[in-house]
């Protein structure tokens, strides 16, 4: 068991490996590169399936539709992602969004200034987010679930109470309407809003100190306290940003519908959480990629769109959505295992 015998053995193993994997090595790295795409791979598979099954799927018009349909989920999922990174949850995003559109609609009754209406929407949404964050953190609540469930209920109630006739109010200022109908390079304006928010948040989480703190707080809150990280402000900030994202979502949705309604955003909390979790984040905090969460959102959008295009009956749509989401996540789990396996294989080959 000396070093030299060891080395001989290793060399032999290496030669054999080299012989039968010379050409294999390249395919291994190719497989690895492919698998490294992560959930994107699954999304691509989904898109490929959809475009085989329904001819209209890959039309430019439809892609632009999907983008518009997905943009609200995607933007709100970005905020949800931040909250989940810190072990939290925000159940109020949908109701918050609805309340923001109603507030915007009410302001529009008074003035048709785009800036004021947008500002009112964002202010309303951020206020709710701040209420969530401050209530959770300084109320020393055991989990954000309860307070955000409470604000869900409260926001929905307020939105219904205050909207004229308790229902949809039509009309939005020109600036917002323009956003809804704008197209750049054939893509809807909302797509660029998603892109902008995503890039901004990505820079903040990956490039800024604050983002590092979010990961630290999510990874181990006790350690974060001990290391002198301002844990409470960091937590509050994530809820405020989740609120802000809901507000931006409200603007995008209002732009699309040219209206505001207390019923908007129904079950949006489940859609966004699903997107984040499909993207590989964990309720135990500190893990997850923004990009993956966006992919999760697009997956949900693509699925709904494809089923509509295929004229699948409503009941079967529900079944199919459940089943395919499940399969997509399971496929990603298997992909992850395969990637780890392949990586080990490559390491052995390279030795």
């Amino acid at each position: 068991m000396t070093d030299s015998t060891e080395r001989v053995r290793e060399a032999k193993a290496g030669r054999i490996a080299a012989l039968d994997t010379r050409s294999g090595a390249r395919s291994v790295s190719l497989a690895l590169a492919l698998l490294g795409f992560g959930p994107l791979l699954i999304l691509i598979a989904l898109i490929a399936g959809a475009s085989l099954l329904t001819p209209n799927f890959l039309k430019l018009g439809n892609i632009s539709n999907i983008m518009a349909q997905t943009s609200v989920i995607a933007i709100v999922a970005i905020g949800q992602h931040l909250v989940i990174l810190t072990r939290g949850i925000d159940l109020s995003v949908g109701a918050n969004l609805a309340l923001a559109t109603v507030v915007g609609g009410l302001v529009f009754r008074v003035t048709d200034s785009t800036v004021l209406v947008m500002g009112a929407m964002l202010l309303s949404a951020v206020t709710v987010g701040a209420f969530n964050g401050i209530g959770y953190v300084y109320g020393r609540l055991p989990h954000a679930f309860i307070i955000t469930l409470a604000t869900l209920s409260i926001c929905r109630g307020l939105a219904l109470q205050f909207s004229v006739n308790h229902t949809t109010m039509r009309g939005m200022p020109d600036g917002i309407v323009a956003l809804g109908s704008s197209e750049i390079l054939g893509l809807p304006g909302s797509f660029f809003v998603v892109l902008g928010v995503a890039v901004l948040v990505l820079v903040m989480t990956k490039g800024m100190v604050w983002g590092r703190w979010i990961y630290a707080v999510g990874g181990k809150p006790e350690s974060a306290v001990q290391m002198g990280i301002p844990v409470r402000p960091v937590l509050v900030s994530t809820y405020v940003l989740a609120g802000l994202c809901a507000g931006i979502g409200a603007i995008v949705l209002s732009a699309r519908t040219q209206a505001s309604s207390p019923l908007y955003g129904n079950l949006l909390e489940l859609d966004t959480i699903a997107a984040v979790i499909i993207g590989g984040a964990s309720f135990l905090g500190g893990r997850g990629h923004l990009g993956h969460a966006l992919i999760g959102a697009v997956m949900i959008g693509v699925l709904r769109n494809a089923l509509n295009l295929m004229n699948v009956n409503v009941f079967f749509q529900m079944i199919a959505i459940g089943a395919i989401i499940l399969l997509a996540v399971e496929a990603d789990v298997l992909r992850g295992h395969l990637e780890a396996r392949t990586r080990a294989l490559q390491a052995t080959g390279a030795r």
Partner: protein
Amino acid sequence: ENIKIGFITKFPVPFFATMEDGAKAYAAESGGLDIVFGQGASATDIEGQIALIESMVTQGVQGIAITPVDPTVATTLDKAIAQVVKVVLMDNSIPDWEGRTALATTNNYEAGRTAGGYLKTVLKDGDTLGILEGVPGVPALDERVDGMLAELSGVKVEIVGRGTTNCTEELGINVAEDILTANPGVTAIYSACGPAAAGAAQAIKNAKLDHHVILVGFDFCCGEAEAMEAGIEDASVAQFPFNMAKYGVEALVKSIKGEPVENLIDSGSALVTKDNMKDFM
């Protein structure tokens, strides 16, 4: 001593708000009537409505006028009847249930036929139709589609898309977009509820098909007026919720007083087009 009744509606939309107004108007006219109002939270809030009925009984009402959200509430209504509470149904019936004193309603199936009748005048063999359904599992909404299809049966129209909208504008716009994408030449779209029709109008507008697609809605509410004004929506079916409530409460009060009442009261429906829309606003 005033008569005390309960008035329960399904969930917060203008339709039911108008019904409450109708009930209040009747109470103001007739006098000697206290009404306790209650409302569920959503189109599927069955348990919530059951709890409402039970608490009305606890409060000692002599009668209940209700828009049942689901046939399920019949059992609870039976319990109320056992405590000598009269029950009048409004808006939709409970199939195979004998407990009601009266039913005041738009006949949804008939109203659906009204919509079908309009479509029949504008569609011809070989045309295509997309359908925006309401909430899956809610009979009144299904009847609007069934009635429309029955009336249309003479024309060979192909149904090219059917999606559920939960009667929301958001899903209305999405499903309509997808129908338009899958079938760019679709002749007409029919929506079983108002908000979804408004959403469909928006989708049609976004696709710049304003004058190419025939849009028929239902309820004439929630933005349909604007769509019709703009020439995107072609027709809708209006109900008369104000009258529905008035007739319902009237029947309830009569039966509490021991007077005979009609078992089925039709509050009517009407086709709305751009020509007569002013009458319904």
